[in-house]
């Protein structure tokens, strides 16, 4: 019998009572300076089986909302208004014992950094099973069996053995699976996830997100998903709430928020993120000016007014309510309809010199930097007594293993890869902070294979670096002026009395005014510190600047400003750059050439456009399919890598990627180091799979 049930649309008839309904929630923290309102007037509801994303930059109060639901605000936090209805019943004002019974049973929570979420001195099995033992009075044996079942459901390999392990014996991704399993053991009605994948690598993150989605369908759990990453939110959510400075400024279905944002802040956010598929010639990032106000000093009217391009006098006086602008689409803006109707024009000061950007496309010049079979090994710290006495064999972490590449003058080479792939070590090797184990680094025709302490000052000057962490990039003891002035004096011999003027000129180049000269680093925000770091690197007028994840710890709106600044300065000085990042979208936006690294080796290198289009190296393909794209309409192939990145102490034989490669063709991958295949003169792929076959792969991302 051939019955044809195709295309039956899923229309749920059931009345969906909200599992969680938050209304006008307000939370304050007591501090020495009095109560500081951290969250004000937040309302949203989550139904059964729905994922409600909450997105916002750091410090906007998203985690506070999450912890208020389980009434875990710490000693000085307090809910001062509004209501939290869970399963139709009010949670505010419930006794501690009642709430305790709900926690872990009906409401579960997963948060960032699984390693610290698990007790280091208890076995995984004990930590899992006690949830059942406490809430359901199960016997230890029965609880263990249930836990093993649950571990199987989160695709944990070898669950019986995992039950007996300690947290430190699992990888980050596995730990997060354990935490998720722990949260779901009691089949909770509500699952709160606070940045659950932020600490994970992009390929692992993709797998965990898939898992979350699958489990949600199976358990019909309502999920409150908190993240700062627009891409992740776009991937997992049904509904999205955008938070800004403690208020929810917009709330709607995910497509609405991403494709048709109504609030100026949301619109600004969307213009800040580089999108995969756009290169720097075709797009420009428009940062939001200013910075997030501190919760202690909020503007009296609309909280976004000081940064808003549409701000009018009324915005300064009246505080807008969150109102339904379109069906199901809420925004907190007086003029949402008006703004939605008109087309956005970048403000005058932000209009980029697009023509110049386009014209900048560098003719391929001679290489300024050339790496030949560079190897950087670290000796593993030896701990046995034998090795202490000099016996035993030294083991090496092969952080960078046999890397050859060239960077043409005036171009930017982006280096991408997951954590531990050796990209930062590569940069440090080039500038001479790490000693080279083998190979040769050539810069402007000079051999610079020696550590920085043995280099000539005039060579040191030509290679400068912009660092990742804004908090450690500046010496907290010295003023901005001193720190920028120091390289000026050392490298360019600027006379003492001219240093100040010169520093101020540099500060202006990075869009900071002269008043910053005397400030100490702790008086600067993250983005400002990063700007000073850039000014310091460029003070020497170097020929090559290495940027080691310069924007990865910044919020998106600040990130955009810093990226733009780097582009602008590069253009001004004609500097060559090496840009290291783990974010493929950023690299794409920023680079002329891209190198993809895995476990110390380059998999694929070539012009940026070529990397993001077939033929791909299988690893590049997997990376691209894992990147969360902040565009719910984009189509992305689903390729998931199994397992975790092997240790660089014992890298796999043959092709390093063979243990996780979804396109492994056979024993040859395990046995032989893959050959270099030239797609074009500049585009090289290191893989055993013939090029013709790689060319046949369809593009991973298609944007409608």
């Amino acid at each position: 019998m051939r019955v044809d049930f195709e295309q039956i649309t899923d229309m749920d008839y059931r009345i969906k009572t909200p599992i969680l309904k938050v209304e006008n929630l307000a939370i304050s923290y007591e501090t020495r300076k009095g109560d500081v309102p951290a969250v004000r007037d937040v309302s949203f509801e989550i139904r059964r089986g729905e994922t409600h994303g909450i997105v916002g930059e750091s410090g906007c109060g998203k985690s506070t909302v999450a912890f208020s639901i389980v009434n875990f605000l710490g000693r000085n936090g307090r809910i001062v208004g509004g209501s939290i209805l869970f399963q139709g019943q009010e949670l505010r004002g419930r006794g501690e014992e009642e709430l305790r019974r709900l926690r872990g049973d009906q409401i579960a929570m997963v948060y960032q950094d699984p390693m610290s979420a698990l007790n280091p001195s208890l076995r995984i099995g004990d930590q899992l099973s006690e949830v059942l033992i406490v809430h359901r009075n199960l016997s230890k044996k029965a609880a263990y069996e249930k836990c093993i079942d649950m571990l199987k459901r989160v695709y944990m390999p070898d669950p019986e053995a995992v039950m007996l392990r300690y947290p430190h014996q699992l990888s980050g991704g596995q730990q997060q699976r354990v935490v998720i399993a722990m949260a779901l053991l009691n089949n909770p009605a509500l699952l709160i996830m606070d940045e659950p994948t932020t600490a994970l690598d992009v390929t692992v993150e993709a797998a965990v997100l898939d898992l979350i989605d699958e489990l949600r369908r199976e358990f019909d759990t309502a999920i409150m998903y908190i993240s700062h990453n627009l891409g992740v939110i776009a991937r997992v959510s049904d509904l999205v709430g955008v938070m800004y400075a403690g208020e929810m400024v917009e709330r709607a279905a995910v497509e609405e928020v991403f494709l048709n944002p109504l609030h100026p802040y949301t619109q600004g956010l969307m213009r800040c993120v580089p999108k995969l598929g756009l290169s720097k010639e075709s797009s420009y990032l428009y940062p939001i000016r200013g910075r997030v106000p501190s919760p202690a000093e909020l503007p009296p009217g609309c909280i976004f007014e000081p940064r808003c391009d549409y701000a009018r006098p009324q915005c300064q006086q009246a505080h807008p309510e969150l109102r339904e602008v379109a069906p199901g689409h809420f925004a907190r803006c007086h003029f949402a309809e008006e703004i939605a109707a008109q087309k956005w024009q970048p403000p005058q000061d932000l209009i980029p010199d697009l023509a110049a950007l386009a014209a900048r496309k560098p003719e391929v010049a001679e290489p300024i930097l050339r790496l030949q079979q560079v190897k950087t090994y670290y000796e593993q710290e030896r701990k046995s007594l034998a090795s202490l006495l000099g016996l035993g064999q030294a083991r090496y972490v092969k952080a960078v293993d046999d890397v050859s590449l060239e960077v043409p003058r005036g171009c930017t080479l982006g280096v991408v890869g997951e954590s531990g792939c050796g990209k930062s070590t590569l940069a440090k090797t080039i500038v001479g902070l790490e000693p080279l184990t083998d190979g040769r680094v050539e810069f402007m025709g000079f051999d610079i294979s020696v550590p920085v302490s043995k280099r000539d000052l005039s060579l040191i000057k030509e290679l400068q670096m912009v660092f990742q962490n804004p908090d450690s990039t500046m010496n907290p003891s010295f003023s901005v002026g001193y720190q920028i002035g120091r390289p000026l004096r050392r490298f360019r011999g600027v006379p003492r009395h001219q240093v100040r003027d010169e520093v101020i000129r540099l500060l202006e180049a990075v869009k900071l005014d002269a008043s910053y000269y005397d400030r100490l680093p702790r008086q600067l925000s993250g983005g400002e510190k990063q700007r000073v770091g850039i000014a310091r690197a460029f003070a020497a007028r170097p020929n090559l600047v290495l940027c080691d994840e310069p924007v990865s710890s910044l919020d998106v709106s600040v990130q955009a400003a810093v990226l733009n600044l780097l582009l602008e300065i590069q253009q001004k000085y004609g500097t060559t750059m090496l840009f290291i990042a783990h974010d493929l979208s950023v690299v794409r936006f920023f680079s002329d050439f891209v190198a993809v690294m895995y476990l110390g080796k380059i998999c694929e290198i070539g012009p940026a456009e070529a990397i993001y289009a077939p033929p791909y190296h299988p690893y590049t393909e997997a990376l691209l399919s894992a990147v969360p794209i902040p565009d719910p309409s984009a189509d992305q192939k689903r390729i998931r890598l199994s397992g975790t990145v092997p240790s660089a102490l014992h890298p796999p034989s043959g092709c390093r990627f063979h243990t996780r490669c979804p396109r492994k063709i056979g024993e040859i991958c395990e046995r032989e180091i893959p050959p270099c295949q030239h797609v074009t003169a500049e585009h090289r792929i290191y893989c055993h799979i013939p090029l013709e076959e790689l060319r046949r792969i369809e593009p991973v991302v298609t944007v409608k």
Partner: protein
Amino acid sequence: MLVKDYMTKHPLMGQPTMSVVEAQRFMGENKIRHLPIVGKGKRLLGLVTRQTLLVHPAKLGSLNVWEITRFLSNLTVGDVMVKAKDVISVDKNATIEEAARIMVENKIGCLPVLEDGIVIGIITEIDLLAQLMEMMATRLPGVRVTVRMPNVSGELAKLVSAISAQGWGILACGGVPSPHDPAKWDAVVKIRDAPREAVVAALEKVEGQQIVDVREV
């Protein structure tokens, strides 16, 4: 078609300490008719329906107005609920027709779904009716034909092959013993993308079967 896939997961639940008044309000606000009462770890303690909340007049007979008020405000859900041992429940792996049978035989409107004594969901008559509705592809357009056929194996196959011979798709298909003729079955098929006349013409040709009802919905 198992209970676990069609039940309502994470149903609203109450505690035995809830007052009857509160429970009435709660059920009314959330528009539900059945409220499983659970203790620690969602263990089923009892079930409250709208009927159980209507206090039996015999209990109040001897009380005056003020005593009634006090009695009612002190009355908790735990006092009036159907105790767990009397609650008829269903396993999550039961089929939905099994659930329907239990409900029909006991003349009840809802079944809590249990796993090791813990409430993991609830299935009500509405859920079952909804599935009937879905089985008949109610929300999709097509030609719905009722055919009366002998209670002999192979008859349905004849009907289906006649439809597939025309290249049509079947949206839904089901059969019940004919209420009018014990030797016959009434089968219902819903055919998509087919003109009504063509359907009638095609099915009339099937031997031994007669079209009882045709409609486009």
